[in-house]
């Protein structure tokens, strides 16, 4: 293979990987955000950001 073929394969692979990773991360964030809004509206609860596993662990150790 020629030098430029290797160069293209390397960059296309990295661009594709970067695009998939970023797209997955952003779309996951958006979907979860919308799901939370829907759940909180249906439950009529206030926003809370506590980590239930860490809180559970704190309660057990106290």
């Amino acid at each position, binding site marked *: 293979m020629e030098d430029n073929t290797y*160069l293209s394969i390397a960059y296309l*692979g990295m661009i594709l990987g970067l695009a998939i990773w*970023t797209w997955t991360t952003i779309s996951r964030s958006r979907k979860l955000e919308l799901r939370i809004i829907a759940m909180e509206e249906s439950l009529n609860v206030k926003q*809370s950001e506590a980590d239930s596993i*860490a809180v559970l*662990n704190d309660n057990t150790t106290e």
Partner: protein
Amino acid sequence: MRVKSGDMLLIAGFSGLMLTLYLAFNWAPSVNINAFQSPEAQRIFYWHVPAAWAAFIAFAVLFIGSALWFFKRSPLGWKLHVAGSEAGLACGLMAVWSGCVWGAAEWGTPWDWQDYRLNTFGLLTLLALFLVLGRQSQPDGVESRDTFSTFGLYGFVLVPITYIATRIWVIRHPGPVIAGDDDSSISGDMAIVLMIGALSFTLLIIGHIMTSVEITKFEQRIDRLQKELDGE
């Protein structure tokens, strides 16, 4: 929909990477054709080195997060552990992929099992893969978080070994291009493009880590809301 600071960093990082790519192909000088088997393929390094640099940042975040969770039970620590392992896997795979393609062009083989840097960096990427896949297959709990954090803590030992590998055991992988000895320095224009690439990857990875921290926060909130919904 509001634009978050993580998104802004991602956009800035992407723009910088595109600029790096343009400069790498159109502005950066070629290397000495007598010194390389595949002189044009050398241009791979404008993303390869910054990707490896970003992977090291991610592994440092993974280490800090693992330590914060393991010793302090910090919720932020766990979020950093998750973000660090995901970012470390993505950047590690990019560095390994581009390195393999360059190795195939320059050395005639994509991997050298005797080269310390290749193998220690490969192990680091595999560790990140184990952490990402392992977390997805295990129920979230104190025990599973402790186990994964321990791997995150011990795995970081490979980072300084990988960093100094080309300084101590030069086998096949080229020596350091930045902060190396006098023989390893690169030309000014090449260094500028490389620096733009490193800065862009740094912005991108910070943006990814911020978004990933937010995702973990969302998942935890959904978990709690689901428990409320189930009446627990």
